[in-house]
C-alpha cells in the first residue's frame, strides 16, 4: 500500500476531547459462559463519547458479539460495571432498553409480515403509538412517518408486501430505520454489512452517514471489514476476549506499524554513503532503500541529501496491516499464557 505521508499531527487532531459526555461506560467487563474453560470477555473497559462512531473490530470468536449482547441487556455479565445513557445495566436494564436501538447480525424482521407491519409492531412495542390492527387505523403522525420512510427507501410500492420479497440490503436499511424510530441514544450495529454485496454495502454506508449527520446518534459498530472502521472516531480491536488495541484509526496505524520512506537514486552508492554519514539505519532491496522515517523527518532528511534522487515515496501502513499485526501478537501472547 503506497500512499501519501501520514503525519503525527493528524493523529492528535482527530482524538476527541476527553471532557465529552460518555454515553457508554464499560469497566472491567467479564463474561464466562456456563461450562466454559475460559472467559469469552476477559476484563474489557472502554467508554464511548456521545455522538461518536465507535467500532469494535476483531476476528470471529474474539468476544464482540458477547460484548454487544451484554450491552443490549440480552446476556448477564459475570463481572464488571456497565452504564448506558446514565443507567446502570444491573439495576435498570429496562430503562436501557428504551435508550438503545439494535440491528442484529442476523435479520430480525418478521419475514411473513409486511414492511409496514414490522414497523408498526416496533412502534407499538416501544410505546410510541397505540397498536391498531390496520395501517389506516393508526394515528396520522405514524402514517406520515411511514410514508416518508417508504419514499426514502424507495419502497412505496412494496410497503405492504411481505418482507421476505425484499433484497438483503433493503432489509438492512429497513432494520436500521426501524431501530432509530424510538430515538435511541445509541444504535448498535452487529456486523451490519456481513453478507451484502459490495454495492449494497457501499449504499448502506452512504445511508448510515446521512443518518449520523441528521440524527446525531451514537453508533456502536462491530465489523470484520477494516475499510468500514476507517471513519470511526474510536476503534477497539478485540482478540481473545481482551482489547488488544484502541484508538483512532490513525493512532492505531501509527503506533503499530511505522511509516517508511523509500528512496532511490541513479547513483545508489553515493546515496548509501551519504546515509551512512548521517548515521541513519536503512534496509535495501532491489527497487529502493527503505528508511523508518515519517512526517517532518522526511522533509528534514530530504533537505540534507545532495545526491539526485530518482524515487521518493512514503509507505504508510494500512489499517489492515496494523490489524493483522495486533491479532497475530495477541494470539502469540495468549498461547504463551
Amino acid at each position: 500500500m503506497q500512499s501519501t505521508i501520514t503525519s503525527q499531527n493528524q493523529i492528535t487532531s482527530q482524538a476527541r476531547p476527553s471532557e465529552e459526555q460518555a454515553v457508554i461506560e464499560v469497566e472491567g467487563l467479564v463474561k464466562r459462559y456456563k461450562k466454559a474453560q475460559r472467559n469469552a470477555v476477559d476484563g474489557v473497559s472502554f467508554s464511548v463519547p456521545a455522538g461518536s462512531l465507535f467500532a469494535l473490530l476483531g476476528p470471529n470468536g474474539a468476544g464482540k458479539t458477547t460484548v454487544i449482547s451484554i450491552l443490549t441487556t440480552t446476556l448477564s455479565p459475570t463481572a464488571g460495571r456497565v452504564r448506558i445513557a446514565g443507567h446502570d445495566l444491573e439495576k435498570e436494564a429496562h430503562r436501557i432498553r428504551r435508550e438503545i436501538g439494535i440491528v442484529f447480525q442476523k435479520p430480525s424482521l418478521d419475514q411473513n409480515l409486511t414492511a409496514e407491519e414490522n414497523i408498526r409492531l416496533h412502534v407499538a412495542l416501544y410505546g410510541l403509538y397505540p397498536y391498531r390492527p390496520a395501517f389506516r387505523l393508526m394515528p396520522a403522525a405514524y402514517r406520515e412517518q411511514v410514508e416518508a420512510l417508504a419514499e426514502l427507501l424507495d419502497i412505496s410500492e412494496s410497503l405492504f408486501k411481505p418482507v421476505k420479497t425484499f433484497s438483503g440490503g433493503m432489509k438492512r436499511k429497513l432494520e436500521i430505520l426501524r431501530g432509530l424510530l424510538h430515538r435511541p441514544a445509541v444504535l448498535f450495529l452487529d456486523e451490519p454489512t456481513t453478507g451484502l454485496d459490495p454495492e449494497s454495502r457501499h449504499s448502506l454506508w452512504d445511508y448510515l452517514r446521512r443518518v449520523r449527520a441528521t440524527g446525531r446518534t451514537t453508533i456502536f459498530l462491530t465489523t470484520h471489514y477494516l475499510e468500514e472502521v476507517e471513519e470511526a472516531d474510536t476503534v477497539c480491536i478485540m482478540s481473545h476476549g481482551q482489547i488488544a488495541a484502541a484508538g483512532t484509526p490513525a493512532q492505531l496505524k501509527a503506533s503499530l506499524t511505522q511509516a517508511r520512506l523509500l528512496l532511490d537514486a541513479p547513483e545508489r552508492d553515493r546515496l548509501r554513503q551519504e546515509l551512512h554519514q548521517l548515521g541513519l539505519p536503512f534496509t535495501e532491496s532491489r527497487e529502493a532503500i527503505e528508511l523508518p522515517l515519517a512526517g517532518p523527518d522526511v522533509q528534514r532528511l530530504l533537505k540534507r541529501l545532495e545526491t539526485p534522487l530518482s524515487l521518493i515515496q512514503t509507505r504508510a501502513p494500512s489499517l489492515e496491516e496494523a490489524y493483522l499485526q495486533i491479532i497475530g501478537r495477541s494470539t502469540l501472547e495468549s498461547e504463551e499464557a
Partner: protein
Amino acid sequence: MSTDAHQLSPTPSLVPSGAPEASRRDELLRRILEPPPAQPPLNRTWNAIVTIAAREIMRYLRDGAFLLFSVIMPILLILGLEGPLQSNFGAVAGYSLMAFAVTGMLAMTLYQYTLQGILSLLEDRENDFTQELLIAPVSRYALIFGKILGASVVALVQGLLILLLGIFFFHFPVSVWGLLLLLPVALLICFSGGALGVLLLSLFNSQRSANQAIPLLLFPQFFLAGIFIPMRDLPWYLDLLSKITPLRYAVDLLRNVVYSGQPEYGKVVLEGPVINLAVVCALTLLCLVVGTILFVRSKRER
C-alpha cells in the same frame, strides 16, 4: 441515493444523485427521525401485550399451508380413526364414538396449538423477530402473556372449526348453555397448554430439540387422556398412567360441559367437573409460575 440492484422499476432517480435529491433525502430522514411528538398508548404494557398477541394472529393468517393443514388434520383423524371404531365398537360403547372423539380433538387442538404457539419463541431465537421481542422495553411477563393470549386466539379459531364440524356432521350433543360455558373452559384449556409451553421454553435451547421432544410429551398424553378411546375399565397400571396425565383432566372437563344433561354423561365422563377444574387450574398455575421464573432467568444466564 440507493443503488440496490433489486429495484426493478427504473425511476429517473437512478441517475447520479444531484444536490436537490440529496436534500430531499435529508428532509425525508428528518421527517422519519424527528417526528411530531408521539402519541403514547394509555397503558404501555397492555399495548405491548396486544401487539404481541396480534402478531401471533397475523402470522397464523399469513401461513396458508399451516391453515390448510390444521383444517385437514382433524377431519382425517376423525374419519380415519373414529370411523372404523364407531362401526366396529360403537354399539358396545352405547354412545357415539365420533362425537366422543370430536370433544377429544377439540381439547387436544386447543392444548396443542397454544403449546406450539408458545414454543415458537424458540423458533429461530437467533434470526427472527424473536430477537426484536427480547430486546424491546417490554417486561418478560408481558411478553409471555401476550404470546399465550395470541396463541390462544389462534387455537380457539382452530377449535371453532372442529366444533362446527362436530355440530354439523358428527352429532355433537352440545346444548346452547353448553356452548356458552364452552368458551371459558376452552380458554382455560388453551392456557394450560400455553403454561406447559412456557415451562418447556426454558428447558429447550432450540426449536429442533423441542420438536423432537414434543411428540414424546404429547403422544402418550393423546393416548392416555382418552382423546380418541374411552379410558374406562383399564388394567391398574394403565389406569395409574392415565390418572397422572394432565391432559386427561382438561379433556374430561370439556366433556363435563358438552355432555351435561345428556343421557350419555355417566358413561362418557370420568370425574366430576370440580375435580377436573381444580386439577387443570392447579397445573396451569404451577407450570406458568415456574416456567415464567425460569424463562425470565434463563434468557440472560448463559
